[in-house]
Each structure stands twice: as structure tokens, then as C-alpha cells.
């Protein structure tokens, strides 16, 4: 997942019944290993893309447009003769930046709202919870369209729109988390047993508070990339000639019957990346849950 639906199932808040990992994942550690390699590859692409791709992602070659994948161009070339593999590799930076940025915005908003609501209770909690519900009534793409119409297409616009759009789910999750921890037997029992506050925080509150955040962050990045690329797909993303993945998808759409690679390759990058994040996120989630159970 990690797509649109991810947050919820993945980080099912505790309080009870965490949604557990699929069995195969639990058993197949190779999945996690593989996912780690994929993530490592893309992280390298972010830090030093030139190590992975020798060609410039912008170099136009009008003599070699729309070439199918071959030894020279393993992902083929686009309508300007640019090397698609280079573009996907170089596009990782912007795509991840958007994903991280949007998730950051989202988490910042959701922590403020969620923690405030969870700790305050009463009227404030009610008001914030209603506010969160209001945010829910704005689908991410609607917000995105609105923001694009106002500010014009840009990375900042995408980050803010996707960040706000994905925030309510997390906010509600964090609020639930805080409530659950506050009233949890562990904490009460800890207090009753005279455990020091620090110990309670370390043993109970901290892991509980961190768990969803770590998982949300991991899953949220993939999810945000998917949403941001959706905006780009509608032609409302970053400006060309940026090789951001969503922009590549949007450009590839027109050639899908002649040059399938233009649509399939960037799509694969997104799916692979998001899937890997999901795999790792769930693995982390599982570890955290295991730790808590102990």
C-alpha cells in the first residue's frame, strides 16, 4: 500500500488490535532486504545521481527520439530524445523531496492537532476533532486543485496541498494514540507501582507515541509521492523539463500506445519505491509492536 489507503491500515493504533503483518512478510525477510536495496538505490539517486546515470536527464537528442529500451538507453528515450533512465534516476530527488516535504507538513499539522486534542479533551478536543472531520471532507486532490489554481503549479504548492490533504488521517491517529496512552493500563499501573515518571515515559508513552510516527512517516512518503504525482498527472505538477516522476507520467500519457516505456518505467519507479517503503514501514511497525508486547 502506501498508496492512497496506506495510512490507516498500516498504522492501526494500538489500543488494541493492531493490524498485523501479513504472514508472508513476517516470514520472508528477503522481502525486507530487497526493499532495503530499492530504497538504498533511490537514496543514492537522490544524493549522487551521477553515480547511477552517466547521461544528463536534460540532454536533448533530436535524432534519437522515442527509442525503445535498448543497451544504450535501458529505459528508452522520450519525445525529446532524452534518456529515460537518467530522468527517472534524477527525478528521484524531486519526487522524494515532495514526498518527504509533504509528509513533514502533514506530520507537523497532525502532531499539533492530534496531541492538543488528545491531551486537552473536552471542548477543545471536540472542536479539533470536528476540524479534523472537516479536513477529511476535502479529498487530497480537490485541495491540490484548489491550491494549484491559487498559487500555480510548483513543488511548494504540491507539498503544501498534499501535506494538508493527508494530515487529518494522521491527526486522528495521533489523537487516538495519545488518548489510548493516557488511559492505558500500563501507564496507570506504572504510576500505581510508583514507577518514576521517566520510566513511564520511556517504557510506555515514548514507544507508543513514536510507533505510529515512524510508520506514518515511512508510509506517508510513498503515499505523498503517489498523490503529488497524481496532481502532476493531471498536468498540474512541477514545470517541465523537470524529471519528477509524476511529470514523466503525465508526459508519457500521450505516447502510451507508441512508447509504452514512457509510462511504464516511471510508474514502476513509483510503485516499486512506495512498495518498498511499505514493506519497510511494516517491518518497523512489527518491531515496535514486538517491543511493546515484551
Amino acid at each position, binding site marked *: 500500500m502506501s498508496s492512497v489507503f496506506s495510512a490507516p491500515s498500516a498504522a492501526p493504533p494500538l489500543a488494541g488490535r493492531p493490524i498485523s503483518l501479513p504472514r508472508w512478510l513476517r516470514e520472508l525477510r528477503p522481502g525486507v532486504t530487497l526493499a532495503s536495496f530499492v530504497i538504498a538505490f533511490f537514496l543514492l539517486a537522490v544524493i549522487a545521481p551521477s553515480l547511477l546515470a552517466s547521461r544528463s536527464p536534460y540532454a536533448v537528442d533530436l535524432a534519437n*527520439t522515442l527509442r525503445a529500451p535498448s543497451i544504450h538507453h535501458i529505459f528508452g528515450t522520450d*519525445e525529446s530524445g532524452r534518456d529515460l533512465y537518467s530522468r527517472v534516476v534524477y527525478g528521484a530527488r524531486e519526487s522524494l523531496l515532495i514526498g518527504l516535504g509533504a509528509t513533514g507538513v502533514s506530520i507537523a499539522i497532525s502532531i499539533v492537532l492530534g496531541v492538543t486534542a488528545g491531551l486537552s479533551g473536552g471542548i477543545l478536543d471536540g472542536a479539533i476533532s470536528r476540524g479534523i472531520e472537516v479536513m477529511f471532507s476535502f479529498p487530497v486532490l480537490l485541495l491540490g486543485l484548489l491550491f494549484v489554481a491559487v498559487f500555480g503549479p510548483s513543488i511548494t504548492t504540491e507539498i503544501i496541498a498534499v501535506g494538508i490533504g493527508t494530515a487529518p488521517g494522521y491527526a486522528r491517529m495521533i489523537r487516538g494514540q495519545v488518548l489510548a496512552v493516557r488511559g492505558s493500563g500500563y501507564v496507570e499501573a506504572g504510576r500505581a507501582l510508583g514507577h518514576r515518571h521517566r520510566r513511564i515515559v520511556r517504557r510506555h508513552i515514548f514507544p507508543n507515541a513514536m510507533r505510529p510516527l515512524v510508520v506514518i512517516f515511512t508510509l506517508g512518503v510513498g503515499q505523498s509521492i503517489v498523490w503529488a504525482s497524481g496532481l502532476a498527472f493531471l498536468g498540474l505538477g512541477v514545470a*517541465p523539463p523537470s524529471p519528477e516522476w509524476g511529470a514523466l507520467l503525465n508526459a508519457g500519457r500521450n505516447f502510451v500506445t507508441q512508447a509504452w516505456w514512457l509510462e511504464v518505467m516511471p510508474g514502476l519507479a513509483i510503485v516499486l519505491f512506495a512498495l518498498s517503503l511499505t514493506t519497510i514501514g511494516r517491518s518497523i511497525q512489527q518491531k515496535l509492536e514486538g517491543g511493546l508486547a515484551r
Partner: protein
Amino acid sequence: MNHESSKMVITARSQGAVSHDPRPARRMRGSVRAGLAATMAIAAVAVAACGGSSSSGGGSSAGASGSQVAATDSTPTQGGTIYYAHEQETPCLTGGWVQEAFIERQYADSLVSQETGGKIVPWLATSWSISSNRLVYTFHLKPGVKFTDGTPLNAQAVVDNFDTWTNPKTANGDVNAFIVPYFKSAQALSDLTVQVTLNKPYAPLLSTLSQGYDGILSPKGLARGAAATCDDPIGSGPFIIQKWNHGQDIEFVRNPNYDSAPANALHQGPAYVNKLVWSFVANPTTRYGSLTSGQSNVIYDVPTADWDAAKEQYNVAQYITPGRPQTLDLNTTHGVFTDQQVREAFAYAANRPAAVQSAFDGEVPFNGNGALSQSTPDYDATLADAYAYDPSKANALLDQAGWSARNAAGYRTKDGKVLEVKLVYGAGSIITDEGATVLQDLQQQWKAAGFDVTLVPATLSQLFSGTYSTPTSYDATIGYWTSPTPGVLLIVWRPWDSKTAPNPNNASFYDNPEVVSLIEAANSASDPATQQADYDKAQQIVVQKAAVVGVYTQTTSLAWVKSLHDVWIEASQGEPVFSDAYFSK
């Protein structure tokens, strides 16, 4: 009568180059997607008008006018439905946007029609005369014509349409831009005689009136108000709007009483097909797919990627729209392009023909003359090669202009300032994806010369809210304005900072009284040679000053199944015409 006073007729020297479709018969292919710049009349839809009058009569000027269409080889058969997949849906079914003109052509008739080459032929006006001072046009309407709501077409109806077009509250953006500077009054002299009076001679008048925007609508229909006219305009054309399924299609049924086809139509009388379903399919891949999967019989704007395949499997037609081509406007009042040398260097620095050839795969021609498209009457062909690719000249010019240093990224600098160019374009609406590819290819070449060009795709709402209408909002922009006459030059080059009537269409912010007076002289000229000379001179000045740099023609294509015959494209705006089309068995 038909005095089409020959003087008035614009000489057509060049016509759209245009590849012929398999049926040698038609040469008209039109196309167009007029720029928003052009029009887009949306909200204030023309309304009004009324009138009434006469009727009857049989087809006067029938007959396919030779230049346009040739006879077909098979006998037309009655029946069937044409499924036509268009691109953009308009907010209204009438108005001043070329997309609206396309639709209006289906259900409305104009006063006159224009053939490829510029010849004006009769339509609702069977004849007309022009006073010797060329200020008074007297149109004689075809008798017996009725709007599809039963209202008779008469002189008052035409007057009401003029009133609607020119009334600021209901103005039709396109008609308005062309006519208002010259229009004085319109009045009904008799039931079927209309007199239009100008305040100064205007050679392009008839040409202007031939466009789909200028379709004459039922005054009774207009009187229903803007909303009704927007949704369900009523004309006297070959098809009647039956239902507009917003977001999906417009269903037209044939007008069984139609007998007012223009003189250049292939036949007089009602359309052969029973229905026309005009659907909106914005995505090019889907649109072409709907043709290949048999869901559509005809599609608009064949994607470049599919053009070669389409030529083999389908009938195709292509039309190079006259008017202003897709042209880069360089901001002459603000930023780096205030320096003419820098503007020239910008033009020399990129291989525009190669980029156009590559991105459109040869489907759309390069248009080096930034003032007029090569299919426009009085286009100056000597400007076709203006600013041919010459990187060393570009570099020399930039060095001279003081932009001799380069920064680490390779961009030129001057006094610590980088040679930055912000190029704004209406992505998706004005510039297609292929056009955006051209810009990206050019961007890399500009980079080599040291220009740091940032492409800024603008949304419709940004364009409409005026975000990019001020001199400080961009360094360069690109756009077009389809027009059957070089009269569009006045629309573009009127002074932008005039106190009385600021001209928003002057996107270079280039004010040159000489250019304006040349165009005005040409618009009002009586002698074709002088007229042409003046238009040419005006084109030369704006191109030589590098206020505009031509890129490619606004070109549109149609592809349709082989079993469908006699689809053609009219010449003023390139509107597809389906009233002569029929299916073979």
C-alpha cells in the same frame, strides 16, 4: 448581386500548406483552436438580438464553389450518426473562443463564408454591396430562412446580432475585438436588407463576418438571456442542438428544413446524416483510441505520435490556421529583453525549425514569421527564415550587449546579474503537449547560448485572473490568435499602454506608432497592392525588432473513417463541417 467588390477581397497569396487528405477534393482543412487569447467568451455570452423577417427562398448561391470543394465520386446516402470526438469542452455553446466557433458552425449560419485563399462567397447574405467610400455595407439576405425555433431570419435579426456582439455587456470577445474599432451602426433597411455602417473603411470586415463566432442567432433565442443562450443557442444551421450532456457530449440532430448552406458547401439542403454526436475527449491518446476502437468516426487534433498511422488508415485533413501563429512575445519594456540585441540573440540561439520538426514529427510546420501565419492573406514570406539558427551570431550579440561573463552553471551574466528568462505559457489550453516539448527542446539550446530560461506553465485561471498580463510578470510568453485576415495585426499591435484603450493582446508590450498606422492604413486601404505593402512593412518591423519570434503554426487535424465521405474544414477558423458528410454503404 454579389458585388464582392473585388477590392475588398483580400488577396490570398499564400495558403496553408497543408497536406491533402486522400480525397483530393477538399482543400479546406481548418483547424484551429484559437487561443484563449483569442477569445473564450464565456460568461457574457452574446445575447440579444432579434429580428425577424423574411423567408424562404431557395438556395441561392448554391453549388460548391470551385475553389473549395470538388465533387465527390459516390452518391450521397441519407442516414447514420457521426460520432465526433473533439478536444476541449467550452463553457458555452456560443461565444468568442475558437472552440465555441467550432460548435457554432454546426448550428448557425454566418452572413458570408470565406474560401481558402480569402475569397468571400454568399451565405445568409446572397449578395452585398459596398459604398464607394467603403463605409456602408448593404447585405441582401436570403429569403425564406428560418431559425430552428421558427423565427424568421430577417434584417432586424441581423441587426440584433450586431447589437449583441458590440454591446460591452454581452460582447462576443472575438467579434468585438475585430469589429468594434470600426463599427458605427447596423440597421434594417427593409425586411431582408441590412446596412452596416463603419466609422472608417475596414477591408477585413467580410472575412471577419465569415467566422463561426459571427453566426447569426435567433433573436427570440437571444432574448431568453445569457444563460439560455449559453446552453442552448438557436441558429439556422444544418444541425440543431438536441442535448448538451455536460462533460460528455453535445447531441445534434439534423435540421430537416435546412436550405441555407454557404455557396462553398458541397450541397444545398439538409445534412445527410441524421445525428451528430460531438463528444469531448481531452486526452489525445484516448481520443485516438476512440477512433481506432470504432467509437468515433471522426476525431479532432490527431496526436502527433499517431499521425503517420492515421494517414494510412483513415482519411485525414489538416489545416494551418491563418492569423497569428504560435509566436514568442518578448517583453520589450521590462527585463533582459528590453535590449534588442538580447532579443535577437534569443531568436538566433535556438534551432526553432528543428525543434518543431522533432516535436511534431513533421505534422506541423515551422513558422519563422512571428507576425502572421503562413496561411494568412498578405503574409510576408520573406520573413519565413528570420533569425535562422546561428549560435555564433547569438553569442556575438550577447557579448556586445555586455552579457559576456558566464557563471559556474554556464549562464551568462552582466554586472552580477544572470541572463534569466521567465517564459510563461498556457499549458494544455494554448500550448499542447507537443508545443511544450518544442519549448523544452529550445530551452536546452538557449542554455548553450547562456540563457537561463525557466518554463512557467500557467493554468487557465492564472491567465484569466491576469496574473500574467502585466509587463513585470514575464520575460517571454507564447500564444496565437486564429484569424482569417491580417486584420488581426491591429488586435495584437495596438498600443498596450494607451490611456484610452489599453491593449492587453500586445504581449510584447511593444508600442510603435509606425506599426499601428501601417496596419490601420492597410485595414482601410482600397488598393490591394498598397494594402499588402503596408501589412508587409508592419510584419517586417515587429519581426526585425524581435518583438516577436515565430515558432510554429497553429495547426489542427481531423481523421475520419474511410466509410465517411465529404467531411471538410472551412477556411476562416478551420471549423469542421459535417453537413455534407455521408456514409457509404
